[in-house]
């Protein structure tokens, strides 16, 4: 099948390169330079899809981003399938495969078209009215049904194999749109030596110049491009859509790099997100042609007049051979003239205006075109393609007898609407100009200017808006993409929706990916006419980003696979891998969770590791703990103000467990702080809290306490931290250490000192998160693994056992030590979690003190940290389970607490749990019930310490 509707005058078609493609399985030919839409039109194919709601046959209306109908699926393979792309924006390549959408079993015979027959029963607001009752039907029937019919196209079934990239860019001037005005603006900025970035959504620059028949347009474009390319500070981005306008002149661009290639190489970047910060933005986004609203205006073959000029002049394609034109703007005559020149017959020019005058009208008269003015359209005929049009004169405001004229194409134009989407996104104010029938950019909050037709329309041809006079409103479409007719808008206003915001949501006009490009102004015109109110009083909806859809891929960018997030590992990580450790994610860190031997399960490994720590010694990588060096003469005073604890009396060489609250009095972080000198502290935080603790402390120092002479430096990653915990810990490390006497009396629990281990500088802390005699050895990170191995080696004779975070959790729970974020949830005071002993009560102030004084913060009914022992000692509770005072398992019941930590303790041979229970500390010995789906589990409330209640082991 040849290109029956193709001539040889397409200015941007390469006739030497024939491209073969398929649409709905059928093979067609096009040329290099075609879009899918132009190539199909050249082959006489107008039927491209079925409409969203009524499944009406639909064709091509426009020639660019404003196309509301011709949505197709372009498929390379199962992973690379893109639904809902506009045929007018798909560049043709050899072997392109496109499919129509929203039809079954096929495009020509579509069962869904039955909806047209019942269209009277699915009016605007149908869903709101119908799916209200009975309530039970919602989940079972209505929701699945609506999900079934919602949306167009089918998502790809496999993971996206393409790469997406991102760039930040800065420029003095960003020009959006490379038509006549945009190119002139870019040229002027370039001549001033500015950094210019100019982008256009099309595959070549030129905008509306590309659609002109005259030779001058082409030549001036070529000259401009040549000059522009000579400036090194000018970046030209074609196939690049400016989809969003963000605050402070940050513009999001999406550059499509491989979409037009027949066989993109594996690993090629498919799309690129540009985040451009521009000193000045120039919006040269042009204007969109406005359709006319008349009955049957959605039949395949009904097209915008300007689009027809584009197809003819740019692509060498005639949309038809016998053409009727319905015009409300002089450019309609230009289209008719050019098409006649190209060999088409003009069946009629029906001007909806009464006395049209102008240059093109005069030319059309001279060319003998059949012009009728003061007309309206009463309908069109044909099913899959328009076959005729009925036009009727308006006499004294009434529709007179109509006249049916045969045609294969109907061109329509209502004039132009400035494309103000980006301007509106920038939160700029729009102003209605009735002499232009257009909203144009007014005040802006950004440093931007609009130029060309995006700024307003030249001349005095304002075209027409709203609907033509008509009686049959149910097939007069305003919004093709969302299947909204004049009748729907009529109904909405009769039902009381008078604000455009309400009408939009009730009728769905101007929604979805189309964002009202063709429909907005006509909707306003219709409502204005019905309510007899001027357009500005109806209001204007917000233009949402994106201007046209962009892929999720560009937002993900490089953040996939190994680079999804930074994977932080410790200096001993490689050793843990060699020992077959199983890791868990703790914030961005990978931490060894347990070290299974042979075929051990997690529970078996954890039990073995726990028993080893209690019996002899364990080795634990604590490097991820946050560390901050606090230095300066006011260091102790600073800590006094930050922590709930008192620090002034902490002597050099000693450590203290510190608790940090937020201003609201709730526990935020904790950790051991050691005093290295009168003016130097080594502070530790939780792994996940390191960054926010440092940020909060810096914030206080910089904004509240500039009187203090103290400075903070993060040392988290300076030190590798090796915890050696258990009764044999001292025996193991003593031979390796010099410079510190670590005997029990010289270096008791909660000591800190500096010395060397295995010849390497070391900060040694005698601390314990296990309840056993323990040390944390800090060495410069590069030496972490070597020292770890030296200790492991030295500990062999004592049965030293590496243990992971899971054993660490069990060991600390046996001792009732809290974990921030596990026992606490951002609403626990120090007293709630049994830490009121840490409060320096004599201190005048500390962060959170004033909040803690409030009565509610001291209420005896607050949830308090307790221990739980199940009556069946082998049952391990579920963390997060709710606790009730009675066994009754039917709602409503009062929930008085929840389980925060729960483990099987190998040391005790039974399960243990920590919980937060209202007023729990006064109820030790009482039986409560932990609610589970199966049954309520009885538990006994106890103090939150299960092992070595007297705390003798740590002093060993």
């Amino acid at each position: 099948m040849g290109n029956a509707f193709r001539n040889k005058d397409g200015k941007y078609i390469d006739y030497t390169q024939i491209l073969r493609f398929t649409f709905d399985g059928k093979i067609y030919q096009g040329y290099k330079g075609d879009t899918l839409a132009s190539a199909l039109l050249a082959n006489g194919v107008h039927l491209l899809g079925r409409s969203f709601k009524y499944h009406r046959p639909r064709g091509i209306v426009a020639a660019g981003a404003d196309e509301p109908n011709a949505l197709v699926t372009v498929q390379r393979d199962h992973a690379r399938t893109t639904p809902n792309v506009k045929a007018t924006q798909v560049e043709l390549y050899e072997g392109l495969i496109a499919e129509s959408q929203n039809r079954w079993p096929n495009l020509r015979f579509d069962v869904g078209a039955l909806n047209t027959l019942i269209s009277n029963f699915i009016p605007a607001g149908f869903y709101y009215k119908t799916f209200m009752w009975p309530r039970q039907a919602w989940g079972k029937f209505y929701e699945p049904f609506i999900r079934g019919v919602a949306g167009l196209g089918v998502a790809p079934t496999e993971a996206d194999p393409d790469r997406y990239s991102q760039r930040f860019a800065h420029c003095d001037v960003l020009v959006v749109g490379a038509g006549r005005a945009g190119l002139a603006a870019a040229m002027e900025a370039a001549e001033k030596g500015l950094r210019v970035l100019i982008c256009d959504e099309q595959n070549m620059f030129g905008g509306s110049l590309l659609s002109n028949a005259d030779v001058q347009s082409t030549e001036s474009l070529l000259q401009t491009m040549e000059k522009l390319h000579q400036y090194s500070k000018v970046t030209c981005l074609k196939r690049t859509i400016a989809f969003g306008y963000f605050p402070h002149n940050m513009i999001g661009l999406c550059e499509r790099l491989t979409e037009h290639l027949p066989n993109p190489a594996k690993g090629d970047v498919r799309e690129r997100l540009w985040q451009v910060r521009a000193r000045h933005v120039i919006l040269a986004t042009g204007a969109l042609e406005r359709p006319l609203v008349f009955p049957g205006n959605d039949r395949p073959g009904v097209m915008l007049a300007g689009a027809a000029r584009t197809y003819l002049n740019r692509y060498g394609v005639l949309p038809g051979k016998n053409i009727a034109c319905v015009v409300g703007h002089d450019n309609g005559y230009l289209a008719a003239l050019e098409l006649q020149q190209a060999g088409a017959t003009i069946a009629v020019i029906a001007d909806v205006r009464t006395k049209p005058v102008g240059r093109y009208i005069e030319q059309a008269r001279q060319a003998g075109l059949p012009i009728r003015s003061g007309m309206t359209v009463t309908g069109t005929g044909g099913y899959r393609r328009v076959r005729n049009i009925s036009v009727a004169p308006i006499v004294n405001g009434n529709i007179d007898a109509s006249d049916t004229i045969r045609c294969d194409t109907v061109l329509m134009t209502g004039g132009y609407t400035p494309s103000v989407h980006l301007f509106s996104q920038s939160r700029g104010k729009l102003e209605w100009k009735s002499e232009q029938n257009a909203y144009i950019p007014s005040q802006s909050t950004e440093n931007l200017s609009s130029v060309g037709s995006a700024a307003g329309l030249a001349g005095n041809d304002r075209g027409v808006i709203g609907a033509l006079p008509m009686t049959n409103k149910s097939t007069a479409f305003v919004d093709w993409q969302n299947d909204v007719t004049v009748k729907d808008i009529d109904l909405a206003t009769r039902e009381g929706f008078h604000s455009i915001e309400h009408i939009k949501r009730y009728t769905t006009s101007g929604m979805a990916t189309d964002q009202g490009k063709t429909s907005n102004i006509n909707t306003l015109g219709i409502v204005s006419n019905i309510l007899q109110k001027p357009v500005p009083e109806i209001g204007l909806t917000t233009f949402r980003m994106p201007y046209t859809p962009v892929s999720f891929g560009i937002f993900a960018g490089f953040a996939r696979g190994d680079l999804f997030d930074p994977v932080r590992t410790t200096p001993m990580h490689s050793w843990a891998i060699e020992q077959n450790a199983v890791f868990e994610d703790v914030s961005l860190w990978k931490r060894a969770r347990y070290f299974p031997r042979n075929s051990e399960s997690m529970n078996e490994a954890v039990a073995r590791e726990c028993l080893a720590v209690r019996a002899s010694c364990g080795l634990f990588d604590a490097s991820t703990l946050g560390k901050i060096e606090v230095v300066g003469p006011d260091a102790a005073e600073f800590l006094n103000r930050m922590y709930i604890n008192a620090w002034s009396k902490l002597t050099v060489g000693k450590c203290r467990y510190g608790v940090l609250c937020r201003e609201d009095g709730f526990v935020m972080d904790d950790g051991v702080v050691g005093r290295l000198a009168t003016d130097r502290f080594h502070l530790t935080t939780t792994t996940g809290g390191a960054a926010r603790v440092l940020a909060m402390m810096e914030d206080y120092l910089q904004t509240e306490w500039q009187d203090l002479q103290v400075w903070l430096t993060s040392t988290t990653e300076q030190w590798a931290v090796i915890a050696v915990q258990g009764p044999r810990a001292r025996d193991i490390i003593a031979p390796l250490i010099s410079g510190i006497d670590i005997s029990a009396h010289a270096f008791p629990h909660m000591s800190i000192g500096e010395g060397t281990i295995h010849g390497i500088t070391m900060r040694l802390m005698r601390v314990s998160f296990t309840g056993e005699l323990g040390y944390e050895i800090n060495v410069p990170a590069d030496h972490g693994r070597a020292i770890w191995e030296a200790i492991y080696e030295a500990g062999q004779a004592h049965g030293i056992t590496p243990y992971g975070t899971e054993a660490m959790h069990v060991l600390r729970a046996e001792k009732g030590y809290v974990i921030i974020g596990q026992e606490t949830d951002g609403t626990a005071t120090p007293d709630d979690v049994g830490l009121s002993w840490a409060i320096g009560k004599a201190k005048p102030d500390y962060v959170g003190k004033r909040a803690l004084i409030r009565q509610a913060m001291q209420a005896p009914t607050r949830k308090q940290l307790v221990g739980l022992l199940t009556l069946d000692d082998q049952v391990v509770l579920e963390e997060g389970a709710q606790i009730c005072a009675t066994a009754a398992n039917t709602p409503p019941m009062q929930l008085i607490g929840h389980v925060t930590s729960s483990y099987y303790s190998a040391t005790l041979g039974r399960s243990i749990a920590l919980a937060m229970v209202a007023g729990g500390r006064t109820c030790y010995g009482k039986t409560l019930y932990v609610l589970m789906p199966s049954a309520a589990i009885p538990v006994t409330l106890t103090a939150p310490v299960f092992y070595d209640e007297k705390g003798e082991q740590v002093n060993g």
Partner: protein
Amino acid sequence: MADISEAPHTERYIFRGGEKACAEADMAFGMNLPREACHAKVTGERAALWLGPDEWLLLGNGFNVQLTALPYSQVDVSHRQIGIQLKGNHAADMLNIGCPLDLDDAIFTTGMCTRTVFGKAEIILWRQDVQTFHIEVWRSFGDYVRGLLAIAQKEYM
């Protein structure tokens, strides 16, 4: 595209203190700490990078000296971070795949330095000449930064 290489190991300190301590440090270190925001100063093999009104990153040997008169803070961070060198064509463009700053050489001029981000990692970026950047990053973020730079190389092959 620019080459990526590991900078040789060096001593590193964070020096923090007021203007007077800073003046004493100039004497003790035998080089003036830069006072201009976001600028680095190089003396021989040593460099001082301005990170904040009271904060400098010192790179190189010979900084480990005690000041006497005034309060200040000096903390050894030699092992906290690593240095990565980026040298060659498109070095700035490669950084801009993940760094939102304007790295035009007329804006972020040679000798300037700043804390910023590269993708999801915080870095210190120092322009040593038009096509050479020195990146300081905490050691556990090193793999991530190198991984992202390798992708940037592909972008500018």
